[in-house]
């Protein structure tokens, strides 16, 4: 992680990144036999074309931002928390479990309990990966990935086994919760405004912990030089576990959001790969919080805008992923070019 470049340099890099990514994804679209301009137009109209679409974008923005915020902690201390995907799933499982147990009890108790349970489940799932890393020498990428697959397996087993719909188990998920257990929302909005507001508050809170608290300073110190941080009196292992749990907790919250505010039940693809996507968001944001809400919004818009591509252009919606990947790859290349200039001189 290098110090932030000057404004002019940053603008220059930004432009180069956009140009490169645009060139790359246009080439891909053309290779797919379609007009890039047409595809971009549909992406924009499909995501920002109406108020309804915009609220759909925000609906994706919330979990993406939550996951990305959590990843700030783990990246700060130098860990690749690829297990964030499974932590989202565990959060969703925790929330579903609590709702199922709490059916009949007053929703104003059950819903907060479900949120808390999701945070706990996600956090503990991340803790498992952290312990494997710090105590058992398993690289956090493999530990996290293995746990992702395990989480998926667990989830499918629950959907098709103990939690199956009466009569028939199916890929459509568990039974839908009664409406009074849904996360509160405003009329006609795809996104719960309370959830979006909560995400903004959490963004501020995470930024604050990173800037102003000992947590932020300790993570930064350990991430940059573990040995020196140890000599200055910090315990790297303990902070690593804490960072993992915080990231897992936020991811768990994103999982709970998917269950309580979006699908109102547990479905097989509950995480929608937002965990993996959030890793890209944070990388593109340069591992700093400032860019996260905007990049997350842009990525969410791509995801939502691409939904109508199969209908309108008979094009696969994975174009969103191609553009997102191109952007990060372009950003890395531009960074690399700057690095090469710096080391050459």
């Amino acid at each position, binding site marked *: 992680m290098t110090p932030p470049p000057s404004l002019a340099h940053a603008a220059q890099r930004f432009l180069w990144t956009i140009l490169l990514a645009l060139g790359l994804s246009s080439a*891909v679209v053309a290779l797919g036999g379609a007009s890039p301009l047409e595809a971009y137009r549909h992406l924009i109209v499909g995501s920002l074309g109406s108020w309804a679409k915009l609220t759909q974008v925000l609906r994706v923005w919330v979990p993406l931002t939550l996951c990305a915020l959590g990843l700030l902690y783990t990246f700060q201390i130098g860990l690749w928390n690829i297990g964030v995907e499974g932590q989202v799933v565990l959060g969703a499982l925790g929330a579903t479990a609590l709702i199922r147990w709490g059916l009949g009890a007053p929703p104003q108790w059950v819903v907060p309990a479900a949120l808390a349970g999701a945070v706990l489940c996600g956090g503990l799932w991340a803790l498992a990966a952290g312990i494997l890393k710090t105590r058992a020498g398993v690289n956090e990428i*493999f530990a996290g990935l293995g746990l992702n697959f395990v989480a998926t397996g667990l989830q499918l087993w629950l959907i098709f086994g103990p939690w199956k719909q009466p009569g028939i188990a199916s890929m459509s998920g568990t039974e839908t919760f009664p409406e009074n257990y849904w996360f509160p929302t405003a009329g006609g909005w795809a996104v719960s405004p309370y959830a979006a507001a909560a995400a903004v508050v959490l963004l501020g809170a995470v930024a604050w912990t990173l800037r102003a608290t000992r947590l932020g300073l300790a993570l930064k110190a350990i991430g940059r030089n573990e040995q020196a941080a140890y000599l200055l009196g910090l315990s790297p292992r303990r902070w690593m576990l804490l960072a993992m749990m915080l990231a897992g907790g936020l991811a768990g919250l994103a999982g709970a959001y998917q269950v309580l505010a979006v699908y109102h039940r547990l479905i097989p693809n509950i995480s929608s790969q937002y965990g993996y996507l959030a890793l890209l968001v944070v990388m593109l944001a340069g591992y700093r919080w400032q860019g996260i809400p905007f990049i997350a919004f842009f990525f969410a818009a791509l995801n939502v805008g691409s939904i109508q591509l199969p209908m309108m252009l008979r094009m696969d919606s994975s174009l969103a992923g*191609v553009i997102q*990947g191109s952007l990060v790859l372009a950003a890395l*290349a531009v960074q690399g070019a700057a690095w090469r200039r710096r080391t050459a001189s």
Partner: protein
Amino acid sequence: MAAEDGVMSEWPLSLFAASLLAGAAPLVLASLGETLTEKAGLINLSLDGTILLSAMAGFAAAVETGSLLAGFAAGAAVGAATAAVVALMSLYLGQSQVAVGFVLTLMTKDLAYFLGNSYARIPGPQAPVFPVPGLDVLPWVGPALFRHTLITYGAVAAVAVTWFFLYRTRAGLVLRAVGENPQAAFARGINARHVQVFYALVGGVLVGLAGAAFSLSVKPGWGQPQGAEGMGWIALALVIFGGWHPLKVAAGAYLFAVLQMLGITFQGIWPSVPSQVFQTAPFPLMIFTLVFMHLGQRPEVERWAAARPWADRLLRFVRARAPRALGRPFPDRG
């Protein structure tokens, strides 16, 4: 072809072995490719997506040209191209191999779905079975080992070839030396960085062939999901599991295929449990193995095992160390 009608050739174990050999071919190829790349000191994390993209490219090219050869060539080219991006970004542009690899994992996967859209669920060419004349009529062994597609034979041969190359040839020696200590290799006049780029490409070619083997032989055709999702990660873990030794890595790949097939068998016993649950079973096993390997390197465990020959032998078998320069590029002087 007399034996084909015979009861003996339908012996279940022989069928099991046959489908094991064929089904494991992509995994074997991919993990061998990654072994070569990592032995030279570079990590190509992008396998999971690369395999999909090369599967798609292989199938598409075969459909367009009607030539299986073109299909495999396209798959190999895609694998090499992805590996080239990782190598150039890390060795020449100083970027983290993990970061670049991870982005490519996601991006190549989406590329595969995007570009493969028009090839989804259409009929296409399929690698034919080449029975080995004379040997295929042998009872039991014939149907198990000698009635396969060329790529299946190729995967088995690749195990031996990779081993031979690494441990019995001059170039293989250079490859291992670079992965251990690029500085020392440099002092002896070896251009360490070129070696690393080259074996990233070679490894990429094998990964690409793995993808093409999937879409042209194991599970012919293209669709979304394709069925090869997750295989790249397994291949990456197998390289660690096999201690960067091609024979152990390949053994791990075949063992993994056995587990997968047992999973299918268990599914027959508990039909209500979705197949994905069984497919995840090897992952906790993988984690346990990695933990076990780590614990085996603790001095107190070593001391404990030293007095017990069986434990000592077991430890020595699982003990493995990554190539010392793995993931740490040689500073800009080559």
